[in-house]
């Protein structure tokens, strides 16, 4: 049973979220087995280049809406375009990346198209054309197998759960321009401005993560400046600890994570929280520094390929989930570890 698969290319002002290409890679895999065709959906302003890249990652066709009206992320007109594209192309399956925008548009399009969404999928079966999806629930403490009885079926893919294909610069295909019937006067949302985020590697995309827990503030040898009260001194100590975490992350090109305890204690911004009420990640290497390993944190990172735990408490639960454990104070281990890795990577 052949399939038509539409893959949404998520981007911010023309810069693609890499997980969009993982979606195209999956679409190509399914078509290889079942036959059919793949199309990429590219919506934005000045996004011709994204269309070219979509061909390189395996799209046979690109459905394109290129208009200043679609420049910024405004859910309503974009969801209208997704639904319109689906009505015209008639896909069996629509794939989104599980990004903030992908999740929103998938949810809204499902309402318009009278179907459902299987969110944050980590594995997909398509035996004999019957699609079923596996997704973590309770932050990965359990797995659910899902099916969808209506078409189009819509899925959003967890970042890094599917392989990103190698781009083939020789590939090309046909571009179909979608009619754009958006009346700006009817769009109730306007973007006043954007606020830059602090740089650094994003947790969801990272192949290596170095994270810190409460232990970052527990360096006994540090003497905080005398004018700080107790609470401010603790934060100051934590900042020194996270500087060590950041130093190691920089050497490895890694993202910086944190436990809920560290975030709740205001040692670092919430953006870095890994766990059940933070981000769920599965990098190739996860180095936990001064993290005890509460069940909420484990839920967010235990599917990492290799876990390294550095903790001065030999009974910390994190050691039960680590491939390698270093019993010791992160403040004394991290500086020589960072140096040794820097030396090795400099080759």
């Amino acid at each position, binding site marked *: 049973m052949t399939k038509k698969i539409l893959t949404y290319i998520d981007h911010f002002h023309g810069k693609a979220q890499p997980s969009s290409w993982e979606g195209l890679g999956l679409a190509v895999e399914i078509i290889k087995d079942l036959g059919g065709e793949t199309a990429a959906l590219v919506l934005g302003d000045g996004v011709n280049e994204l269309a070219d890249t979509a061909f390189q990652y395996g799209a046979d066709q690109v459905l394109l809406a290129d208009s200043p009206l679609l420049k910024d992320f405004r859910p309503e007109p974009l969801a209208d375009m997704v639904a319109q594209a689906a009505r015209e192309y008639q896909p069996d399956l629509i794939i989104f990346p599980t990004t903030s925008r992908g999740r929103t548009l998938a949810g809204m399009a499902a309402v318009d198209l009278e179907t459902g969404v299987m*969110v944050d999928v980590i594995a997909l079966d398509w035996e004999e054309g019957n699609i079923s999806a596996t997704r973590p629930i309770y932050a990965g403490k*359990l797995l*659910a197998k899902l099916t*969808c009885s209506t078409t189009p079926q819509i899925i959003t893919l967890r970042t890094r759960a599917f392989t990103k294909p190698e781009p083939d610069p020789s590939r090309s295909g046909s571009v179909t321009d979608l009619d754009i019937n958006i009346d700006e006067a009817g769009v109730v949302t306007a973007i006043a401005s*954007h606020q*830059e985020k602090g740089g650094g590697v994003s947790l969801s995309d990272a192949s290596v993560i170095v994270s810190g827990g409460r232990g970052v503030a527990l360096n006994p040898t540090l003497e905080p400046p005398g004018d700080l009260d107790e609470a401010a001194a603790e934060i100051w100590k934590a900042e020194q600890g996270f500087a060590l975490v950041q130093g190691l992350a920089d050497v490895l090109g890694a993202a910086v994570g944190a436990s809920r305890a560290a975030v709740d204690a205001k040692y670092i911004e919430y953006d870095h929280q890994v766990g059940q009420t933070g981000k769920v990640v599965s990098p190739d290497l996860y180095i936990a520094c001064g993290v005890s390993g509460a069940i909420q944190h484990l839920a967010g990172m235990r599917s990492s390929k290799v876990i390294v735990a550095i903790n001065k408490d030999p009974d910390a639960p994190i050691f039960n989930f680590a491939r*390698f454990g270093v019993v010791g104070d992160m403040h004394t281990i991290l500086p*020589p570890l960072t140096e040794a890795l820097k030396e090795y990577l400099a080759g």
Partner: protein
Amino acid sequence: MKIIVCVKQVPDTAATMSVDNGAISWGDAPLIINPWDEYAVEAALNLVADQGGEVIALCLGKEGETEAIKHALAMGADSAAMVSDPALIGADNVAASKVLAAAIQKIGEADLVLFGQQSVDTDTGLLPVQTARLLKWPSLTLVSKFESVNSGSGKIQVLRSMEEAGQVVDSTLPAVVSVTKDYGEPRYPSFMGIRKASKAEFPIWSLADLGLEAPSSSIAWPEVTEPIQKEIVTEIIEGDTPEEKAKSLVDKLISEKVL
């Protein structure tokens, strides 16, 4: 200003989850308000404290799943309503959104509907946008800050979060907003609040009360399993000094091709 906050009851995040005969179990772990929803309740209470008005907690759940509503009332919500109907067991997100949209219309005249960013059980994050889409109201998701809300002029400005940047968005009321943890710490319920909440009465609406037939669901969950845990053999890195341990760890990572 009239604000409806949608809340949900979930097992405590410290619960160990298991599957017994196909049914999801959290042992004897306590049931709590979905932790993300506390930020939405906090935001609603602050907006109303600023501008006057009322906060209504709305919960879709099985009979007796009142923990989330009780917590919202204890934090300071003025009133609550629950939707419960056996026909809703196994409802998917679109079906649940239809029910919530109908309940929001039954309550009537809301300026804002707030949600937590997602629930810690099913983690879909779809209800805010799907409810908004059904109501034909703007969706403002992942909001960490309300720059301004004016029910008189019907205008709202919020700070939304995306992967690459924050986005300051102007929109119109009524609107649906999902609130993130960045909004700020939710308050603890006061002793008086808890007493008041324990005595509070609230309506429990069936689908018929909302004038709805049982909405059909596209998504089914034929199977829930416990993930297979890979066997982990932990190797403790030995060494007399931190330098030795660091060196030994790097050697291990290289020999196992992690680096």
